[in-house]
């Protein structure tokens, strides 16, 4: 029996940044036992618009939205296996790490963090792979 691919819609349309911002991406794609989550930016779940702040506040928002998206897909933060964090400034890494330590208090996922140029003036993009 072949393994299937399916798109998992976020719990509210406002969290579907692909559709809300007109970008050609799904937010969560299931392939076999894994969920592949697109690079997430800080989105206000009430309006669907970008929520601009500090790197730390953007990280708080991204991880809160991620939690809701994973739980709606039948998964959870403690099923995240690998995270990629992209920062507009690596100087913010300690601030972002504080948020991560609170969000993943024990056995956090594997992670790579890079300082790169990010689109649209966002300070943080976080993508992850999780068990479904």
């Amino acid at each position, binding site marked *: 029996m072949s393994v299937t691919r399916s798109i998992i819609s976020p719990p509210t349309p406002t969290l579907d940044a692909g559709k809300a911002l007109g970008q050609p991406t799904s937010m969560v794609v299931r392939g076999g036992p894994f969920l592949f989550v*697109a690079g997430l930016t800080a989105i206000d779940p009430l309006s669907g618009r970008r929520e601009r702040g500090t790197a730390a506040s953007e990280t708080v928002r991204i991880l809160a939205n991620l939690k809701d998206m994973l739980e709606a897909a039948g998964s959870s933060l403690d099923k995240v296996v690998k995270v990629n964090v992209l920062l507009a400034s690596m100087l913010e890494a300690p601030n972002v790490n504080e948020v991560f330590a609170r969000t993943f208090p024990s056995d956090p996922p594997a992670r790579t963090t890079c300082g790169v*140029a990010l*689109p649209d003036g966002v300070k943080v993009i976080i993508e992850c792979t999780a068990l479904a």
Partner: protein
Amino acid sequence: MTPRLARSVIQPENPRLNVSRSANLPHVPGIRAGDYIFLSGMGPIDPETGDRVHGPIAEQVRLTLGNMAHMLHSAGSSMDRVLRVHVVLADLADVPEMDRVYRGFFPVDPPARTVWSMQLRFGNGCEIECVALAGDAGQPA
């Protein structure tokens, strides 16, 4: 005891797209392991000549995604089985043009994507990699 997954190397049917080999780089174009295909980052190579193509980003992205489709077909998979894509651009200003071309390759239920900009090698304007589900047909020949 769980059987260990086999790991096999993916080569493009068009050898001009095998940059790992032609540039003598320490990687292979892709690896299949069980149900998953992991492709190395691909760049703007002309499939007729094997030359790198620079210039307008739209053409670079079109070539790169076309080559990625070929690589997936060579592995018994296809673009509609792609799960995750990383699009890296040398210049952030190229995002809108990249998006325009990208949409055409993933018109429905696109994969999960992350886009960013950083230094790329060989003067390439883009580098694109993906994770995909293997095809239904079992292990390719």
